[in-house]
């Protein structure tokens, strides 16, 4: 099997994939790091950055979902599809559905958590975003838990996604990964 047989995602989809890969991994790392810092100006600064980045992830994920709906991804090449056992096909689709759900769930629970904790989000310090939930300590506790759980679930799925891609690249050597690549 040669990679020439593989149809790529459209350029916009590829660009959004890598932009969001960077944004999500970076913001996850920032989130994990900042939550253990002692109270300090740096901590507040990181929290603001984390929220702004999260809002961007949410916005670009919406664009990405729209792009995917308007221009559905290329089907798996027949040879690869035929070589995959049923559980792999199921895992392939389930992972993508779950990832997309989490692209929205993680930022939205973070946004709601911030609102519930009494810190409305002001994007880049200038654009106030609406609060969808009231200020409440009890609600903030629940939303914080949900934000963390969904973020770690997403991290787990991202690892699975990367493992799958690397398996196709290095073990199957089927060129599947080039669907998301640039260049020749």
């Amino acid at each position, binding site marked *: 099997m040669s990679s020439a047989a593989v149809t790529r995602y459209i350029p916009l989809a590829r660009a959004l994939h890598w932009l969001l890969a960077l944004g999500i991994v970076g913001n996850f790392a920032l989130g994990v790091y900042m939550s253990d810092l002692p*109270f*300090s*100006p740096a901590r*507040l*600064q990181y929290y*603001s950055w984390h929220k702004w980045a999260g809002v961007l992830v949410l916005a670009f994920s919406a664009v990405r979902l729209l792009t995917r709906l308007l221009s559905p991804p290329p089907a798996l090449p027949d040879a690869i599809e035929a070589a995959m056992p049923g559980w792999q096909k199921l895992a392939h689709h389930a992972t993508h559905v779950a990832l997309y759900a989490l692209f929205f769930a993680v930022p939205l629970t973070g946004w709601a958590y911030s609102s519930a*904790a*009494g*810190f*409305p*989000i*002001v994007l*880049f*310090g*200038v654009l*106030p975003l609406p609060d969808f939930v009231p200020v409440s*300590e009890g609600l903030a506790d629940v939303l914080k838990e949900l934000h963390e759980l969904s973020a770690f679930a997403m991290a787990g799925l991202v690892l699975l996604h990367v493992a799958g891609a690397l398996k196709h690249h290095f073990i199957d050597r089927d060129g599947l990964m080039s669907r998301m690549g640039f260049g020749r």
Partner: protein
Amino acid sequence: MNTRLLSLALVAASLSPLAAQAQQAIVPAQSEVSFTSRQMGVPVDGKFKTFSAQVAFDPAKLASSKIAFTVDTGSADIGREANAEVVKPLWFNVAAFPKATFTSSSIKKLDATKYEVAGKLAIKGVSSDVVVPVTLAQNGATTVASGAFPIKRLTFRIGEKEWADTSMVADEVQVKFKIALTGVPKL
């Protein structure tokens, strides 16, 4: 008999100006003292849970009217995480300065319900002149005095050292109050 009547009359006469200037009582359950600071553009609301006031206010005798207000700095409530911090020396330094006070020096009537109360605001050992606009609303036996005024937190050294950076926490803090009083003479 005559002496007794005379003394009663004297007591009554001496009491009457006092009666007009009687102290009003604050109704804590219907009163609020809150503030809004800005952290990287984000409005963060807080309030003081414990405060008291000594009010001797007579709209007909403004020159002798007096307002003294005390807030327990340790009762600041900004949210769980900040509450543990705001009592520390860099912020309110509650251990050394447990009370913030306002003492009126003059009261000016603007119109039927609006007044300007000038006085000294003392927080964290620093005293500064402020003019507080007050709007009065009477409803039955209760008079609600409300208003808002800005203060500069750095004037009072609220947020020192690394917290003095106003790009992180703005210098201006909006203070709001709603004080319910009983015993205020009719406006």
